[in-house]
């Protein structure tokens, strides 16, 4: 009895349900003569649900809001909430909206490429913010690890780090969002393809577009690497060794790497 009532009530609150028919209202078993009226009550609960998720979307998708402007952004969010319906209880509220990019891609006849990438950037920032806080490794420790032939540890990217490649230039969104990265190697060198990296350091989230060499090595460390694998990469060529050295310097400086404490399988 209670389960059926809760199912009917939940169905009535779904934004796409629209105005309820008299039959649907009857299923809810609400007292007709109370304040507020049953219709107002359902409207109230539905409005609360929509406003709660609008607030979450506004908090998570800040660059998207800036890119679109307030009114179009609110309109997009309302349409998304209506489309997405009720999220699973696994998602809850904190990271609500992770399908916003997919929604725009699917339902905009001519989706603005920059909008899609800004949405993706916002999503990555949110994921990075809430990810596990791990201790990053410094360059000195990496050097010691490389010299320790008995080490079973592996080195990899922090689980809070996210990256994606895009043809859209997102460097203009870096203002006030990144620490001062002055190294020339961080400047994208292939204007037609950017790699955007999002990472967390000291509980703050940063993002930056990378050059091709750095982005290739970033992808290399997506898989946890053994000492032997890293040394093998060093030995590929003089260029490879220099690139790897440069990458490790930057990556350790900005806290992208950590050493797994557990022995590999």
């Amino acid at each position, binding site marked *: 009895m209670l389960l059926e009532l809760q199912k009917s009530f*939940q169905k009535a609150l779904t934004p796409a349900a629209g105005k309820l028919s008299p039959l649907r209202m009857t299923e809810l078993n609400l007292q007709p003569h109370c*304040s507020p009226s049953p219709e107002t009550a359902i409207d109230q609960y539905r409005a609360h*649900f929509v406003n709660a998720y609008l607030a979450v979307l506004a908090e998570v998708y800040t660059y998207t809001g800036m890119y679109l402007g307030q009114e179009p952004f609110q309109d997009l969010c309302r349409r998304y909430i209506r489309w997405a319906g009720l999220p699973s209880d696994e998602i*809850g509220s*904190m990271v609500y909206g992770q399908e916003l990019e997919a929604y725009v891609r699917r339902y905009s006849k001519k989706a603005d490429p920059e909008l899609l990438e800004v949405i993706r950037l916002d999503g990555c920032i949110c994921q990075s*913010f809430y990810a596990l806080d791990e201790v990053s490794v410094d360059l000195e420790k990496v050097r010691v690890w490389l010299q320790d032939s008995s080490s079973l540890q592996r080195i990899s990217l922090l689980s809070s780090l996210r990256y994606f490649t895009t043809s859209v230039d997102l460097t203009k969104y870096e203002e006030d969002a990144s620490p001062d990265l002055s190294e020339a190697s961080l400047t994208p060198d292939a204007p037609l393809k950017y790699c955007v990296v999002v990472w967390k350091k000291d509980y703050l989230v940063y993002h930056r577009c990378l050059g091709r060499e750095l982005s290739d090595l970033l992808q290399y460390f997506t898989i946890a690497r053994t000492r032997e694998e890293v040394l093998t990469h060093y030995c590929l060529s003089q260029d490879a060794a220099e690139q790897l050295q440069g990458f490790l310097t930057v990556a350790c400086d900005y806290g992208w790497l950590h050493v797994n404490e557990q022995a590999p399988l």
Partner: protein
Amino acid sequence: MDTSKISGVGLGLRDEFVSELLTSIENGCPPNRIGWLEILADNYFSQGGRHLHRLASLREHWPVVLHSVGLNVGSAEGPNMQKAAQMRRLVQEFRPAWVSDHLAWTGISGKYIPDLLPLPYTVESVEVVAANIRLLREYLDCPFIIENISSYACFQNSEMTEVEFLLAVVQQAGCGILLDLNNIYVNSQNHGYDAKKFLQQIPRERVVQFHIAGHTSQKGFLLDTHGAAIAPDVWDLATIAAQLFPGVPVCLERDNDIPALGELLRESEQAADIFYGRPPRRVCLEAMEDRLCY
């Protein structure tokens, strides 16, 4: 769990004034009107983040209780055990005096609704909620108390009044009550009952904590927004509650239009005046333990 440290006026922690509180600790002058903090646990259900780090710093200075809106205590399908697992992690890390959630449900069939949805006041609902509370208390290994909600719908199949429902649940679950005075006032106005009589029916030993907050008026009914100063009528109800349930700790809640911390502290002084006189009376520790452990 050390429940003895929760006494006097506490504050519902919100992001808007976390920095101010941390700065006050660093400067060696934390607001002495705040005796403890109530943490909205759902905001900390993540693996990491600065908010968790900052909470750990605050916890070193203030005792805490954990409050949730998402355990789904009223679900006919059982509580949300994924969120309960997150809550258990916070319990182990922050050692709260108790955990609380609402006499409500927040979704069914694996869906989540960010609102506190009303239950019909039936024997079946009592059994469902009581079983869920017992399960959560055992799983969390922490005292668990239940809060009355503001509701905007009444069910035709209800078999008892709101207060009878609340008492039946806590009796069957063997738990204490987080009594939200604003919610009682809002419901009394919307559903037409006497708020004072509501309070008088509750056994003194069941009440572990108070909530007090503001509401707004909307289209002919009151809405529990936590977005305004506490209304004079609610302060009046607080005066009655203070007489009926002396020494119970009270938490100020504000979720929307959050003012400067100073304004909240002024409200906390008013609460301290009403509930404890000045300075805040310490709670009878033995009595508090009794309320949490039936």
